[in-house]
């Protein structure tokens, strides 16, 4: 078994006394795809934000590519190095891009930061990345307002990959897309992983999408992990009652919504 590329141990986060994440631990191997599954309030997004450094853990340790990142970076160099290790793609394609910047310029800006390529080299790399996520030259050179949600999300993926990260966090990255667009982006993600060997940490509430993307799953509820294991095993034979509930709540052929008389929702 290879060494983990991302290691999360005993992660805690409280917001003004309210526990958002409690004792979360997991690890991600190079090139693997791990899904963090949960509903709103499960703490899955907070975990992602702590890993990329947008939120400070109350307690616990995060190690990525052999470097600790539980604390804010101490230098400009360290901050940039972290950028080269983990990148993130967010949910909302409409606010994920600077509205004043064309995709090509946005990717170019990242290349300037992380590589020593000259102008011609950067142009080549921008074209490569565009090809990787399936965008043409015209689309790379218009303003984001001219692009559809799916196209913007591809730009966000290309921009994240420009730093050549080892880990890509996808925080509900396909949740806001139409079904036909979602399928395109999921295929792009599959292709990217095959061609670059980047590892995915896939944050999602959608079990069907998770089945398509991830090798392994951790299921979160109320800030803690309730079940973990290989995707097929967890989805086909869920052990925890909550995972079973999630599984049976998904509409499908022969699905009949059932009223659970035992649990009336209370505020």
């Amino acid at each position, binding site marked *: 078994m290879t060494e983990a590329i991302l290691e999360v141990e005993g992660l805690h986060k409280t917001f003004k006394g309210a526990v958002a994440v409690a004792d979360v631990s997991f690890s991600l191997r190079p090139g693997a795809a791990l899904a963090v599954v949960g509903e709103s309030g499960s703490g899955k997004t907070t975990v992602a934000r702590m890993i990329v450094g947008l939120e400070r853990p109350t307690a616990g340790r995060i190690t990525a590519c052999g470097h600790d990142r539980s604390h804010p970076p101490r230098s400009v160099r360290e901050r940039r190095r972290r950028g080269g290790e983990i990148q993130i793609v967010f949910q909302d394609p409409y606010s994920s891009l600077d509205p004043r910047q064309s995709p090509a310029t946005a990717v170019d800006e990242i290349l300037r930061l992380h590589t020593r390529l000259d102008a011609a080299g950067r142009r080549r790399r921008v074209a490569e990345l565009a090809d990787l996520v399936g965008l043409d030259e015209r689309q790379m050179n218009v303003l984001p307002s001219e692009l*559809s949600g799916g196209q913007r999300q591809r730009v966000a993926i290309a921009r994240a990959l420009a730093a050549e990260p080892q880990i890509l966090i996808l925080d509900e990255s396909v949740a806001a897309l139409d*079904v036909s667009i979602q399928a395109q982006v*999921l*295929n792009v993600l599959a292709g990217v992983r095959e061609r670059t060997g980047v590892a995915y940490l896939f944050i999602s509430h959608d079990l069907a999408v998770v089945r398509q993307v991830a090798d392994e799953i951790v299921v979160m509820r109320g800030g803690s992990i309730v079940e973990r294991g290989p995707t097929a095993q967890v989805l086909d034979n869920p052990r925890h009652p909550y995972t079973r509930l999630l599984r*049976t709540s998904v509409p499908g*052929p022969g699905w009949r*919504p059932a009223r*659970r008389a035992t649990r009336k929702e209370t505020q």
Partner: protein
Amino acid sequence: MSGILDIDHLTVTLAGEDRPKPVLSDVSMSIAEGEAVGLVGESGSGKSMTVRSIIRLLPPGARMEGNIRVRGVDLGTLRGAALRKMRAEMPVIFQDPRAHINPVRSVGDFLTEALRIHRRMSRAAAEDRAADVLDEVGVSEARRRLRQYPHELSGGLLQRVMIASALLAEPRLLLADEPTTALDVTTQAEVMAVMDELRRERGLAMLFITHDLELAAAICDRTAVMYAGRVMEVRASASLLERPLHPYTAALATARPSIERKVDRLTTIPGRPLSAFEAPDGCAFNTRCAHVRESCREQRPELRTLLDGQVACVRVEELQAVSHD
């Protein structure tokens, strides 16, 4: 044939920036008493506009052609009090209850307003009714809820309040516009269960709008698929999912990943969903269809009766023959 709701050749055009913008193009469908019909489509397909046309809640400057009849009454002829009465009998359950319920009035006020105005019920009597229905939709401590304000309730609870307010109107037809899209999947299952159960108990007809083909198929008798402001296919739900006839329906069904198994690559539809105003000549789907022929670009296919429903595709028979070989 006259059902509880009949939509005939409905075309809706909004006032655009430089020119009028069609959003619905020749939509026809009908719902029988007690029947649930799903309306499925991606963004811009016109499914919400269909609901808005039914309750005549279109943006200013919108033009409507064709007609909509509710139990035989042409809605276009209704004005003033008669229109209000008809609206009161066709409540809409909207997607985002937090935006659709007045934040500065109490839940009780929201629930009893229509009763007090339309039925001239006293506040106390209306509150009794409201509390009963809240209890029915599975909201605990109904009396206390009536005194609370929308911001004090979770999204799932608030959507139940919305459903309760719809049921209080004692309608024959429910209009539901993506009622569970903003909810968590487990909450969705519960809210759907409540809606489904109460609808069947009371024998209500329902027009159910969603982007989720499987959800629609699971709870509706028939399902209609819309694309670019047109109806592409209307079929009995089970057979629509099992054997979609229209290439768009088929593509939509396979584009969605399955919870049962992983595939190497999903079958995708190239391009993005088009809105009615961007639709090409001929079949609206012809720019994305894998089976497109010259004839698809020339003439718009009519909705034809076939098997257990209707389809708008000229190549259905050929394609079915191929897939069965």
